[in-house]
């Protein structure tokens, strides 16, 4: 017999109850009861997820059995994170030392040992605040007094704020995408932490009040908007001041001269999310700076979970690990696309780093389905914006139609870092091949754009982000895609994988792009491209070869 008959409970009560059940068989019985009774889909999902989790735990590898040398450091780190037994960890450490002796692997194991043993001394020492004047008597103007540090210590933070960027009175797509993602994150958050925190949308501009219904439909619970005809175009100072004023309204700051409001009781937002557009990214940096906090830019993944941190700058005590709760994990492609980094924004002793901020690459998340029935609390924010905040004046603007559209062509020729030995010549060859086709476009991998190649003047105009193919560039679906000297990072694949035929040219026999090409020409693009150009120009290879040998 089961302890809890799900059909007798509301969904909201069931979440926490189910989480405490450790017996998969009992859960199966509950699932059967629900199927026979109310048969509610979310309840069944809840129970099934729990079963899956329990069984996944059982499948875990036994640390004594595993062959360390076969694990990458990343896999090892995942394994180690779940081990609580110091003896097992020490055994692993000894085996790693005897085996491959990788420094990064040893670090991971050692820090887990430290995390467990360090935890025993907890409560032994309380950190004590030492004012900078005492701590650094040799400095006569401590930085804390500088005008740009206006942080909080021990503040109260709630909600996820989403800056909804607009253009000509309309939401841009990334604003809708962020609202959908924020809704999803906060629904999970509220369940996980048993909270009822909101998605708060922020609209700033001229005529933005008209957008509140749409913003509600995409998932906002509360909408703050600031309207001013002078804000028709984005301007850094005024937009930042308006956003920050909203963020600081109410809460303990009300006592320090900030406006007291009835729509917000906490001090500052817990999380802020901005679009990674030219203006959105700037705003994110300025708002987070003014609030004395941090952020990750150009994220393509976000999730919230607790984080075990041993960095002494954050814990205050070297050697200790501390669990920080409700941390926004911000994943972003880094180092010119070579790696993914996960960035965390974490308080330090006596100085809060909240809100935790992120900007999001447009197109990273789906636009959610609009729910026209959804309602949100709408608040107009009022504030006088002094003229000096509008010192940068937009005198003119134009839609940029010279943007390069790589989509809709029969053929796309794209060049990558394989041009490195002679960048200008490489680009020339690519352009010549484009010319040989009736309808072709010329694209680049991100690597060429972020590199420090020096190009000669006549090809320089072809080097720019407007020709980038991939995750943060354009997505093309031509009949034929020719990738010359492109190694094929996953972000590039996203931009071209729908092409009918993919032809790759690369000197490396094992470049990643081989795995998603139809033809793999293993050779030097500086030799292969001239032959292809002639062959396409002349209609067949034989003449091309003959002519080439005539030269």
């Amino acid at each position: 017999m089961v302890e809890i008959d799900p059909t007798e409970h509301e969904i909201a009560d069931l979440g926490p109850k189910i989480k405490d059940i450790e017996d998969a068989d009992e859960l199966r019985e509950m699932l059967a009861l629900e199927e026979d009774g109310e048969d509610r889909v979310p309840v069944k999902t809840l129970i099934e997820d729990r079963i899956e989790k329990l069984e996944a735990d059982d499948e875990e590898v036994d640390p004594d059995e595993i062959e360390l040398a076969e694990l990458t450091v990343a896999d090892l780190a995942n394994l180690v994170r779940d081990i609580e037994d110091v003896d097992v960890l020490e055994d692993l450490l000894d085996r790693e030392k005897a085996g491959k002796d990788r420094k990064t692997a040893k670090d991971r194991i050692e820090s887990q040992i430290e995390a467990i043993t360090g935890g025993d001394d907890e409560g032994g020492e309380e950190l004590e605040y030492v004012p900078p004047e005492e701590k650094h008597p040799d400095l006569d103007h401590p930085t804390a007094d500088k005008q740009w540090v206006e942080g909080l210590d021990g503040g109260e933070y709630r909600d996820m704020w989403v800056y909804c960027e607009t253009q000509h009175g309309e939401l841009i797509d990334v604003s809708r995408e962020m609202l959908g993602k924020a809704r999803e994150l906060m629904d999970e958050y509220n369940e996980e932490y048993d909270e009822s925190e909101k998605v708060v949308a922020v609209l700033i501009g001229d005529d933005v009040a008209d957008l509140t219904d749409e913003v509600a439909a995409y998932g906002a619970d509360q909408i703050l908007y600031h309207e001013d005809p002078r804000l028709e175009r984005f301007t850094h100072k005024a937009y930042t001041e308006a956003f920050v004023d909203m963020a600081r309204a109410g809460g303990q700051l009300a006592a320090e001269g900030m406006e007291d409001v009835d729509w917000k009781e906490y001090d500052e937002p817990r999380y802020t999310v901005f679009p990674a557009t030219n203006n959105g990214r700037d705003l994110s940096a300025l708002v987070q700076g003014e609030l004395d906090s941090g952020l990750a830019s150009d994220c393509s993944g976000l999730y919230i979970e607790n984080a075990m941190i041993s960095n002494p700058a954050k814990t205050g005590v070297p050697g200790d690990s501390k669990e920080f709760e409700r941390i926004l994990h911000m994943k972003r492609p880094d180092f010119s696309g070579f790696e993914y980094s996960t960035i965390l924004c974490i308080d330090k002793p006596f100085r809060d780093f909240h809100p935790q901020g992120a900007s999001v690459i447009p197109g990273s998340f789906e636009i959610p389905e609009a729910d026209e029935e959804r309602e949100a609390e709408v608040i107009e924010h009022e504030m006088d914006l002094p003229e000096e905040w509008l010192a940068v004046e937009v005198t003119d603007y134009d839609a940029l139609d010279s943007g390069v559209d790589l989509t809709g062509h029969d053929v796309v020729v794209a060049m990558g870092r394989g041009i490195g030995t002679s960048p200008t010549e490489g680009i020339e060859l690519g352009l010549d091949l484009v010319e040989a086709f009736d309808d072709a476009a010329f694209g680049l991998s991100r690597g060429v754009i972020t590199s420090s190649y020096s190009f000669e003047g006549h090809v320089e105009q072809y080097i720019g982000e407007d020709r980038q193919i991939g995750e943060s560039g354009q997505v093309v679906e031509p009949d034929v895609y020719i990738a010359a000297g492109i190694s094929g990072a996953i972000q590039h694949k996203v931009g071209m994988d729908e092409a009918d035929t993919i032809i790759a040219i690369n000197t490396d026999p094992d470049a990643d792009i081989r795995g998603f090409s139809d033809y793999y020409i293993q050779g030097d693009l500086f030799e292969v491209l001239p032959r292809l150009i002639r062959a396409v120009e002349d209609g067949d290879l034989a003449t091309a070869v003959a002519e080439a040998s005539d030269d």
Partner: protein
Amino acid sequence: MRSVVLTKGVPDFREGQVSFDEDGHLERGKTPTVMNPNDKYALRAALQTKVRNEGQVSLMSMGPPGYMEVLQEGMADVYADDLYLLSDREMGAADTWATAMTAATGIHNLEESPDLVFAGFKTADGETGHTGPQTDWCLDMPLITHVISLDVDEDEETVRAKRLVEGDVEEIETVEAPMPAFIVTDAEFEPTYHRAEHRLKHKDLRDATEDRADEFGEYLDDDTDKDPMDWDRFTMWNHEDLNLDPDYIGLDGSPTIVAGVDPIPKAPSEREATDIDPDDDSDMEQVVEELTPYAAGD
């Protein structure tokens, strides 16, 4: 006119220069340092101002002493008059906000405050695009970002710039701001030298600064007994010189930390590639057959 250009050294990401460890992580120590490619546009904007409006350009960076070579490279590029390096163990591992505070303090510490500060958009390693705007926020100057062209009117004490705006529609904006101002250049920045006298001046300046950069090179050369600190155009400041509280700079002052770095997962293969030997005509013929239907007509 007095300008300051901010620059940074980054790993050289060109093919063949980047080194990875066995887990696929970038090995910074083994990858050579070069000037951040995007900073070249900030240098060009500052140079254009110097050629067209006269004045002095200082180049400033924050980083380890090895960045002196990056400054030397920049000196020749921007025809800089003097170089500043903010360098200190305490400043290490800073994120954008801690860097911005340090850079802003460095600028405050200059004898003469600048009319224009220039920065590039983002660095090739951190790629945040935050440091320029956040440094500006500390300095509280009018900010113009994503600048693709620039005109300075010294009499009116204003700058006029064109900048790029992204969104569902890409736009180009013309903005005007009073000086002093903070300019963040876009990678599309184009300097313009319409007048012959500017082009001549450009050349004179280039010759003069090449000599100057060479001179600094002698100080950087380990084989000479010259100490870079003795060169009158180079200044290095540590946190004490700048009165910076170590808790607000470097790793300790950084709100963010990098919790993990994963190699980008390899794209799963979904196509079966036919291997083509470029020296085999029948192999190549297969490729050409795919292409000829799309060849340009006569």
